[in-house]
C-alpha cells in the first residue's frame, strides 16, 4: 500500500501524496519537535519537510526506504530551522509535570535534561532522538543521517556525555546535601 502510494506520488499523483503525507506527518513532526524542542519550529520544519518530500520524491529509487528517507529530510529541515530561527527558546516544559510520575524521575531531571539537550548542537540532538525516540540502530541512524556509523557513534558519545553531565551537575549538590546518601 505504502509502496503503491509512493509510486503514484512519484509520478505526480497529488492525491496519493496527500495520503502519504498525512500518514507520515505526525511522525515527522514528533521527530522535529524532539530535535527542536519547540512546537512552532517543529511545525515549520515539518511543513518544509513535506514540501521537500514532494519535490524530491522523483529521485527516490528504493521505495522501501521511504520512511528512512523522510526522516532524513525532516532532520535536515530541523537543522535548517534551528539555524534559521536561532530563537532564544525559553527553558519550559511542554508537558505538565506530575510529581507522582516516575517516568523521568523528577521535575529536576526533566529540567536538567531539557537544559542539557538545548545546549547540544542540532546534529547531536538528532542522533539522540533517532536512538531514544525512534529506537533506531546505529546503522539505521547512519542511513537516515547520511553519515558514517563511526560519526554516529561519536556524536552519540558526546551527546550522552553532555546529557549525563547535565544530570550529574544537578545531582551533585543534592548528594552533598545528603539526600542521595
Amino acid at each position, binding site marked *: 500500500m505504502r509502496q503503491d502510494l509512493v509510486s503514484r506520488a512519484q509520478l*505526480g499523483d*497529488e492525491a496519493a*501524496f*496527500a495520503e502519504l*503525507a*498525512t500518514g507520515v*506527518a*505526525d511522525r*515527522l*513532526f*514528533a521527530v522535529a*519537535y*524532539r530535535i527542536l524542542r519547540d*512546537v512552532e519550529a*517543529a*511545525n515549520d520544519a*515539518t*511543513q518544509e519537510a*513535506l*514540501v521537500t518530500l*514532494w*519535490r*524530491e*520524491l*522523483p*529521485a527516490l529509487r528504493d521505495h522501501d526506504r521511504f520512511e528512512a528517507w523522510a526522516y532524513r529530510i525532516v532532520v535536515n529541515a530541523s537543522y535548517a530551522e534551528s539555524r534559521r530561527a536561532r530563537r532564544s527558546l525559553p527553558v519550559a516544559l*511542554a*508537558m505538565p509535570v506530575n510529581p507522582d510520575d516516575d*517516568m*523521568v*524521575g523528577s521535575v529536576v*531531571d*526533566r529540567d536538567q*535534561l531539557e537544559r542539557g539537550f538545548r545546549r547540544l548542537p542540532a546534529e547531536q540532538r538528532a542522533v*539522540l*532522538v533517532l536512538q*531514544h*525516540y525512534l529506537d533506531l540502530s546505529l546503522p539505521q541512524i547512519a542511513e537516515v543521517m547520511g553519515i*558514517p556509523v*563511526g*560519526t554516529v*557513534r*561519536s556524536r552519540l*558519545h*558526546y551527546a*550522552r*556525555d*553532555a*546529557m*549525563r*553531565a547535565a*544530570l*550529574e551537575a544537578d*545531582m*551533585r549538590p*543534592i*548528594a*552533598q546535601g545528603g539526600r*542521595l*546518601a
Partner: protein
Amino acid sequence: MTVRIGDRELDRLMAAWMDEGPTIVAETVIDTALAQIPTTRRRGRRWRPQDVFTDRAPSMLRYAAILVSLVVLIAATAALALVLSPDPAPQPPGPTEPALASATPSGPPSTATGRTRISITGAAEMEGEWQFFVADASAEFPDLNRYAFYQFTGSPCDCPAGAYLHLLLDPDEDYPVTVRTDDRLVMRFGFPSSGGMRPDEYINSHVSKSGECEVVFTQFMDTVIEGAFTCFDVPSEVNELLINLAGEFSFDPREFVATPNQ
C-alpha cells in the same frame, strides 16, 4: 561526592523524557504544505546506467541493453577461455598480463616503515607540558600496538584541568603529522570521559585522512603541529587513560605501561 549515572539509567531517563511531548502535527501544517504542491517544481528523476535493466526504462531500450550485455559476456568468456587454455604455443606476455591483472584486485599498497617524526611548530597557545607514549609492540590490545598516544596537559587549549587531547597514530608509518584543532575540540574534550573512545572511533570521527600523509582535525587557531614521537615515562594521566580504555575494551594496560617502547 560524585554521582555517576549509569548507561542504563541514562537510557531510561532519555527514552522516558523523549516519549513525552506532542506527537500530533497541526492539520494546518499538512494543509499548508499540500497547498504549495501544485506550484512546487519537482526534481527530475536522476538516470543511472543500470536503470536500463529495470522497469523504469522503456522496454526496447531494456531489451537492447540486455542483448548487448549478453554479447559482451559471451565474448569475454570466450576470450578468457582462450587465454587460460593450455596452449603450448609461446605467447607474448605483454598483451595478456595486463588483461588478467585488470581482473584481479590489487593488493594493499606497501607502506613505508620507519620512525614517525614530529617537529613541533606550534604557536604560543600550545605551550604546556607535552608527553608522548608509544605502545609497545607486544601489547595485546587489538590495534594499540599500532598507535602512539600523546596528550596535552597544562593549558595548550586553555582546557580546564584534566582535559586532554590524545591522538592515535600508527607509529610505524613514516609521515609528517599535521594537526589542526578548533575550539569545538576543546569543548569535546571538556568532557571527562572523552578519553574513552576507541582508537578507530576516534579516527573515524575526527580525522579526515588516516594512513596517508596528513592527519587533519578541524581547525583550531590554525595551529599546525608536526613532530616526532618520543617516549617518556608514562605519566599518571596516561596511565589513567589506559586503565579507562582497559575497562572498556578488555585489555591489560600494565603490559605496556611497564614496558614503554624505548
